[in-house]
């Protein structure tokens, strides 16, 4: 056997196993200690005692003296609790929890460095020792004697009597003979006397044995498997699913009966195998929840609150990677509920609620997803306060805030930099949080929703997929290519036939559709992906029968309609990441291999919505705070104008005024066209000429001029038409060869060129500035 176990970095295998086992035990300990404070059951004490005893024993064996010392005093204290010589107090629980933390720290040191840290934990040892030697507190309830027998195995005679195999008199006689000097066992004596059969003694012995070891342990019916191995299996199953899909497609066209039968069997087996492998990666959500009783206890003590935690659906299972991913968001939400949600006991009494607040966790399956709810019966949130705070923090404008409904207002709490807590506490932080919670949950394809009633409480509802690797998707067509849309972001499908195709209306150039009375912004897939240029009018209309297919998607709680040319089918797809060279393209979440072996791109609903500008601005969905800050900074006010059939944008901050001039006042100064404007000579730059674009302006039309001022000099930019002023995040894609353009961006759902004004002016006015300098 090699001395190195994979995953433990050269640590001895025995140590590795000890670490894994101890970590599992410690998670359980946290829960048991908190339970113990509320219900001092002897069985719980006994279980805690056994765990600590095991760690102590092994650490002594492995030579970890600090660990042995800490667990030893802890064990002493526990043994007095177990014997009823002491009763559980909050002090004792806190000290024991501190001991668990110390053990965790030592174990972490061992795991990382291979040896214990130098810290001797003297204070803790002394505290535990002092608590142990405290005067026995008169026990409020008699020490539960009925649980004691379970500690020691019952004598064989007792078992036989209890099972009715032997009488008390027979057993008493056998014991008397033993005491008189007979070296044989009670069982043997009874068999010899003919009272019972040897088989019955054997059964009783077995029962006694089981009692000693606590029944067949879990370790006998399960094995530990490296997660890497499971990941690998999962990948292979993914490949198998793809191969299966290809064979099924091929079979359908072949018409061979034997092949069809075989491939159907393959289909069934693959599906079962897929489910089986997925199950191996499933873990109960309890693994995350286990630590919450402790979190809630510590926090509520720290805030002077009384809070009880209730859990429902602990055994709901989720993929391991998802469990890992939701750990932090859930912890944050629980902390929030304790810190901001639930009121102080005094306040609760004033409000006629019980002194003790409740945080409820609930998990259940619903339609292929797992729903997790975190609710509290605290103060709830006031839509008015959220509105005021968002305006105060400049997250939204006053007008926008006034027009928002209750639901939209509530969703503001997920904006970066939002926090309604009046005082900043070190518990749930400074308003960095809910946005991160949201992005983390969305990163695994889930979403979060909040419901609240002022004075009654708040509920956060999280929906997450069961697994990440294989997802159900809708296949659509656009521009001759197929794309997959993950079902999680899908709301419904709408099909407009030729007569109803005119139901697509336009609001200021943006196409919308009235879906059950509400305006649904439309995004044309071919237009966003630029497989069709913005000026072509046709749209995603099926040329043959003139129908329009709208896929209603949800991005960030906002529905929008994605117009595609074809909706083909649903399929299970295996998500594969895109390579480094394609990471920057936000429209795609990955790629997958279809049944026919070709590659199809997976659309990212959120990315599409952002590119088309339907999510309402600077909402960021990146993975870090830094991203969020960057996006907020990227929110710009743009002036939109046109030249010929092209739309252009200019940053409004560069614009001084908008003017209209009669062409007859244009004069010439040297080669430069100018107008007299406010006692100055204003040079004019005809943008269409400068950029080489066409123009719709005819001779004699009034000149529409954007007056640009920089460094005390003004310049007039002549454009065709001025359209609008919009505020939005600007994501300029740089791939233009046209001199004078910074790149292009999607503004109001349309591709818009962004002017590089400095570049334009440098060139257009080179002569002028040179003259001025001379």
């Amino acid at each position: 056997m090699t001395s190195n176990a994979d995953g433990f970095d050269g640590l001895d295998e025995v140590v590795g196993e000890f670490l894994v086992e101890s970590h599992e035990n410690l998670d359980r300990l946290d829960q048991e200690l908190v339970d113990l404070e509320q219900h001092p059951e002897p069985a719980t004490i006994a279980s805690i005692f056994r765990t600590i005893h095991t760690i102590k024993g092994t650490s002594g064996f492995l030579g970890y003296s600090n660990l042995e010392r800490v667990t030893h005093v802890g064990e002493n204290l526990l043994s007095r609790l177990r014997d009823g010589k002491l009763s559980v107090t909050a002090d004792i629980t806190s000290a024991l929890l501190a001991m668990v933390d110390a053990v965790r720290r030592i174990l972490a040191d061992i795991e990382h460095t291979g040896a214990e840290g130098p810290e001797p934990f003297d204070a803790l040892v002394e505290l535990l020792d002092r608590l142990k030697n405290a005067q026995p507190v008169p026990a409020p309830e008699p020490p539960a004697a009925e649980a004691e027998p379970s500690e020691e195995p019952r004598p064989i005679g007792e078992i036989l009597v209890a099972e009715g195999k032997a009488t008390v008199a027979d057993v008493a006689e056998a014991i008397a003979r033993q005491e008189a000097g007979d070296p044989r066992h009670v069982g043997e004596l009874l068999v010899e006397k003919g009272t019972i059969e040897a088989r019955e003694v054997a059964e009783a012995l077995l029962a006694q044995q089981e009692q000693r070891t606590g029944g067949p342990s879990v370790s006998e019916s399960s094995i530990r498997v490296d997660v890497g191995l499971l990941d690998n299996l999962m990948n292979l199953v993914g490949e198998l699913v793809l191969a299966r899909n290809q064979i099924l497609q091929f079979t359908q066209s072949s018409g061979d009966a034997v092949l069809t039968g075989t491939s159907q069997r393959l289909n069934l087996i693959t599906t079962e195998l897929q489910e089986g492998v997925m199950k191996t990666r499933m873990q109960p959500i309890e693994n995350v929840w286990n630590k919450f009783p402790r979190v809630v206890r510590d926090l509520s003590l720290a805030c002077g609150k009384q809070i009880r935690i209730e859990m429902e659906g602990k055994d709901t299972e989720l993929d391991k990677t998802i469990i890992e991913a939701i750990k932090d968001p859930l912890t944050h939400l629980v902390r929030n509920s304790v810190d901001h949600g639930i009121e102080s006991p005094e306040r609760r009494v004033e409000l006629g609620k019980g002194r003790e607040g409740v945080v409820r966790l609930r998990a259940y399956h619903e339609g292929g997803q797992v729903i997790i709810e975190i609710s509290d019966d605290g103060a709830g949130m006031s839509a008015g306060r959220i509105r005021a705070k968002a305006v105060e923090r400049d997250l939204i404008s006053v007008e926008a805030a006034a027009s928002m409904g209750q639901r939209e207002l509530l969703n503001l709490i997920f904006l970066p930099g939002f926090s309604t807590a009046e005082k900043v506490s070190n518990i749930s932080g400074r308003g960095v949080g809910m946005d991160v919670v949201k992005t983390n949950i969305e990163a695994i394809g889930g979403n979060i929703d909040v419901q609240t009633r002022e004075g009654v409480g708040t509920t956060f509802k999280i929906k997450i997929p069961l697994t990440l690797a294989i997802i159900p998707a809708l296949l659509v067509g656009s521009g001759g290519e197929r794309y997959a849309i993950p079902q999680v972001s899908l709301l419904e499908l709408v099909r407009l036939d030729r007569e109803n195709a005119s139901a697509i209306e336009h609001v200021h150039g943006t196409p919308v559709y009235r879906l059950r009375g509400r305006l649904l912004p439309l995004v044309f897939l071919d237009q966003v992906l630029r497989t069709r240029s913005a000026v072509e009018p046709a749209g995603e209309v099926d040329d043959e029968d003139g129908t329009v297919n709208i896929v209603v998607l949800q991005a960030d709680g906002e529905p929008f309609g994605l117009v595609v040319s074809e909706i083909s089918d649903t399929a299970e797809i295996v998500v594969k990441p895109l390579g480094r060279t394609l990471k920057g393209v936000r429209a795609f979440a990955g790629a997958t291999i279809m049944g026919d072996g070709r590659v199809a791109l997976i659309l990212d609903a959120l990315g599409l919505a952002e590119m088309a500008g339907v999510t309402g601005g600077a909402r960021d969905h990146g993975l870090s705070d830094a991203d969020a800050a960057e996006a907020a900074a990227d929110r710009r006010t743009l002036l939109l104008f046109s030249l010929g059939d092209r739309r252009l944008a200019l940053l409004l901050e560069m614009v001084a005024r908008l003017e209209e001039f009669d062409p007859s006042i244009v004069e010439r100064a040297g080669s430069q066209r100018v107008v007299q404007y406010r006692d100055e000579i204003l040079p004019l730059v005809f943008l269409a000429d400068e950029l080489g674009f066409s123009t719709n302006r005819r001779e004699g039309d009034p000149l529409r001029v954007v007056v640009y001022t920089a460094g005390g000099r003004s310049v007039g930019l002549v454009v065709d038409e001025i359209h609008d002023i919009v505020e939005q995040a600007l994501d300029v894609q740089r791939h233009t060869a046209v001199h004078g353009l910074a790149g292009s961006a999607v503004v109001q759902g349309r591709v818009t060129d962004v002017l590089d004004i400095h570049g334009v002016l440098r060139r257009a006015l080179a002569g002028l500035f040179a003259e001025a300098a001379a």
Partner: protein
Amino acid sequence: MQYCTFHLGDLFLGVQVTRVQEVIRTQRTTPVPLASPVISGLMNLRGEIVTTIDLRRRLGLPDRAAGQDPMNVVIRAEDGVVSLLVDEIGDVIDALDDAFEPSPSTLRAATRDVIDGVYKLDGRLLLILDCDRVLDLPATLQESA
């Protein structure tokens, strides 16, 4: 040093043979909208999704004539494999170190950027491609913008 060679227009190019996983004929690719025009698409290489890069576009050469099928030179990159589209495959050449010279400074900017140097062979020059810099798209695109 051994090089896998190929032709691209008039250019005779090579990459280190150790970087090449395989050479395959034209495959169906799925175009990626919004991506750099240098990226010709995604192809399915035995269940793996591989990004293909049009080396002509990467080097600023005119597009291949219609009907001329490119070859895929599949190379190992940092995060998986990437395929380079070339016109025609040449031999594997064992080049001698003393025939090597850094690329001339008058080489076109788009090309010089990704060429490590030149081997002076009998009657012709072999340009050595730097695989990693070929895949470095964002920076080079910004420069040209």
